[in-house]
């Protein structure tokens, strides 16, 4: 077995673990974290494909590598948006298992 194959199996396990948390966790924040796990597993898949595509003197196929870089940044943007949405939802009193947020000290003018 090559290291790339081993990490491919690890990627499959990461996706499965993340999916488990995404479906079962009642708390929205934990769902966001689980979703990021699924994302990490998917990126690792691309990494394995890139490593296998090492031809023409390259250490890896640069196209999937560039896509993963793009993907990591987009995943960050999605996470930041989701967290902001979640905090706003709790501030406006939506009932969730996370309970109401603490009022930030500097909210009042």
């Amino acid at each position: 077995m090559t290291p790339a194959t081993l990490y491919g199996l690890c990627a499959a396990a990461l996706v499965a673990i993340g999916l488990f948390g995404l479906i079962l966790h009642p708390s929205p924040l934990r769902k966001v974290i689980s979703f990021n796990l699924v994302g990490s597993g998917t990126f690792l898949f691309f990494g394995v494909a890139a490593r296998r595509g090492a031809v023409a003197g390259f250490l890896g196929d640069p196209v999937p590598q560039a896509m993963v870089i793009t993907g990591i940044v987009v995943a960050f943007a999605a996470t930041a948006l989701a967290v902001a949405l979640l905090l706003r939802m709790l501030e406006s009193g939506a009932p969730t298992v996370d309970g109401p947020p603490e009022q930030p000290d500097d909210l009042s003018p």
Partner: protein
Amino acid sequence: MSLAVDLVMVLLILTAAVWTILARDRRDAVIAFIVLGLLLSLVWMRLLAVDVALTEAAVGGGATGLVLLRACARLLPVEADGALPGLRLQVAVGVLCAVVGACLAAVILSPPEPAPSLAPAVAAHMEDVGLKNPVTVVLLAYRALDTLLEKVVLVLGLIGVWALAPDLFWGGRPASLRAAVPSGTLTFLARVLPPIGVLIGIYLVWNGADHPGGTFQGGTVLAAMWLLVMMADLGDPPETRALRLRRLVAVGPALFIAVGLAGFGMADGFLSYPPGYAKPIIVAVEVALALSIAVILGLMVAGPAAKEPDQ
């Protein structure tokens, strides 16, 4: 022997992942996720993808972890938020997820032969552009449209975050990032480190043309320095309505689009570079993009406006 190292890495990663899901306390889950991000960046080194390793460490573990930790601090401590529903449901979902995982594993174990690769196409492109880092060539020349759209996604994401501010606060400052209790140690770090970080951020951008590094990695380092200064209370988050700030957000994508449109007149079409001038144009676009990424990432961590704008 070398496979043993990989095996240990995989076991550590899976432990961190399981802990992320099973931890009772949400802060423990976030910390496990940050650890996972750092381990994954080591894996990217093992897969010889240094550019991705840098991005994973800076954005995947670092910036994402910071956003999640801030969210934890803003939520009331709840004892058992890791409580999963009943055992029967857990088993059912567990089986479902195991099946999905097994299918993916089967794909990994029966790969297509020969392995598909676009590397030769990129190699052909590299000579036209004159850059030595293939990943940068893909990001800014071979598949530049993807990168441009991703910048647009970043700007839209920031607008989305800002749009979540209550109407009263629109255009005001985000909630302060300062630590709950002021710490001389943090202030010391925030006074000494940022100049060095700025230099390293610029180095990553400049070096990215020919070596691992680039706009994302450098921009994230710059954003981290800005956030450190704000956390140590040496500077407030800026008003989100400030025109200068909004120009910084837009300068990278705008220059990228302008260069792309100029390609119609001066080269073969959208986002193609005139022969001979590709490298200086790409470096200019990269500098502008790094600046915009730094500002966007910092503002995304800071969150929507939480104060009324000054009169």
